[in-house]
């Protein structure tokens, strides 16, 4: 199997996620971009599992999903608190701490 297209796709997804984190202001969207990065990694893991012919990568992908789910729970809780306090989900508004 030629893994290049899969790895390429995963790299593109990772890059999009990465750039998304940098250019978007909405905390939820940034967070979705992080999830995109995690899923790009998942794709790479599964591809490599296929290349190497063992299941470690696939099992790892399951763990990543679990972790991502836990992260969602914590992350949304934090974002929601901020939103309720400030009536804004823009990460640029939360910049009292600086210098």
């Amino acid at each position, binding site marked *: 199997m030629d893994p290049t297209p899969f790895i390429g796709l995963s790299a593109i997804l990772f890059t999009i996620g990465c750039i998304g984190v940098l250019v978007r202001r909405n905390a939820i969207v940034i967070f979705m971009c992080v999830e995109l990065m995690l899923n790009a990694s998942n794709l790479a893991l599964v591809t490599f599992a296929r290349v190497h012919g063992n299941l470690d990568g696939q099992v790892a992908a399951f763990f990543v999903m679990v972790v991502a789910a836990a992260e969602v729970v914590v992350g949304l809780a934090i974002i929601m608190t901020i939103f309720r306090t400030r009536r804004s989900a823009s990460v640029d508004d939360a*910049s009292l701490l600086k210098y």
Partner: protein
Amino acid sequence: MTSSSASLFPRLAEEGGHAVPVIHQVPADGVFALLWVIIALPALGAAIILLGGGNRTKGFAHLLGCATVLGSFAISLVSFFALLGRDETDRSVGQFLWTWVDAGSFRADMALLYDPLSALFLLLITGVGSLIHLYSIGYMEHDERRARFFGYLNLFVAAMLMLVLSDNYLGVFLGWEGVGLASYLLIGFWQHKPSAAVAAKKAFVVNRVGDIGMALGTMLVFATFGTVAFAPVSEVAGEAPTATMTALGLLFLLAACGKSAQVPLQSWLLDAMEGPTPVSALIHAATMVTAGVYLVVRSNFIYDYTEVAQTAVVVVGTVTLLWGAIIGCAKDDIKKALAGSTMSQIGYMMLAAGLGPYGYAFAIFHLLTHGFFKANMFLGAGSVMHAMNDDVDMRHYGALQKAVPVTFLTFAMGYLAIIGFPGFSGFWSKDKIIEASFGESTLVGLCALVGAGITAFYMTRVMLMTFFGQKRWEEGVHPHESPKIMTVPLIVLAALSVLGGLLLFGDFVTDWLTPAVGAVAHHELAFAPWVFSLIVTVVVAVGVTIAWLTVGRNEVPRTAPQNVSFVTRAARADLYGDALNEELLMRPGDRFVTGLVGFDDKGVDGVVNGTGTAFAGMSGTFRKLQTGYVRSYALSVLSGAVLVVVALLAVNLT
């Protein structure tokens, strides 16, 4: 520890006919078992006073402070005589306390080395220290934080004793940092004065520069020899490559420059005079500032193998002795004039230490006599200030010899000693250094000779401005002699200033130091030693005469003591009145001095302060990068990731 030098017949490294001594320790027994107590007593005193707090210890802190140091002095004295009674080969006593750091091959012990060199230092530190403690009882009488002052003084003494008693470089470093801390605390003791706080900070920062040398030097010693203890290092020092020894020598020289206020790290010492006068006497004249000389002499087994570093020491010493002397001429503040003189005298010691076996013993000899007479003069200056309501400007003094007779007489003893009046202690010690430096190089010898002349000039100026001439006192000043508790130490120190030269009687001090620094080597000189003594005496006489002609002879009669600014102006006009002197000597000299002082303030301080400012500026600029926006932080993470990956790929895929 004591078994580390197993051989009973120490291998003597021959170099230029001089035997580099190998430290061979014998275990501590008898009175030497008490060595640790010498350090522990003042440390305990400091702990009780500082941890107990000022209010609770107010009643007894000064007594406790004096008692601990006197106790240390007593033990030092007994140990000294016990050491005197031993054979020359058994005079390095090692006491192992506990293993401080033991990490794999790296091992440093908390262990003490008591040998002739440290014995002399102990006597100086605890002896002069005791006198200064006693003096401080009177001097600090009216200061409500006197208890804390004594706590700091005790802390200083303990750290200084640690410095000279440790048997390894790490222990020296511990003491080194300890005295730096105590010095910092004491310079800034009158913290309500911004100038004192600034001076304290400056001293600390400049000293840190030197400390880098000490730390790196210690690490290099360990990396080279696998140990930091003096004894094993001295055994194998001859086998190390010269380049390493040179690096070590230069690093320790950097350290010495910081602690001993040598050019180019000298700038802090003048500002350090913001501290109370006993501090100036104890720390910034008699003991701490000589730590650099101690380090160089103690590391003789390193310097003897590296001519480059030795030459560097000589150059630093020579430059400093002139630099300090010239600054001393320009200062009107009595303490600053004395501080300039301290720099200059330590320059002499460094010069002697840089001469290697020709000068180690004389460096220590001069260090001792200087400890006596400079402590004497600083305390004398303190006594004068006490009399003059803490005024330090010599232009407000004059004609004090009647008002404070004891101070005057004791100060005069110190004065005669420092200019090298024949028979006084300074004469013997400085004369030897000048003689030895002529053996090294005529240029260095001439510089040392000129330095002696300038010393005579500015010390005479101080003497004349303070005690002779017309009264130029501030309004409402009624000079009075200090209490007994202050004058008795002055008298003792004055006696020592006069008699200190006796140490050289029968070559006692040089023979005594032989086990620690090696036998004194002698150059072939062009003239007999007494000719040199004569020349030095003549040069000193010339210096005194010039001072008399410029300062002493030209007094303005009937100056009104009430009118301060007029007095000051008159004194200045008086000082520069003689047209001939002005044109030929004072004016150019003054300009030169002003230039030097200016360079000292702007150039050298500028470098220190400038570095600080540069860092602060950088800090101020870069903190703007911390914008507070998550996304810009994420960008820095991303750029970091790119940096890391690129660094990896660049290294590996080229």
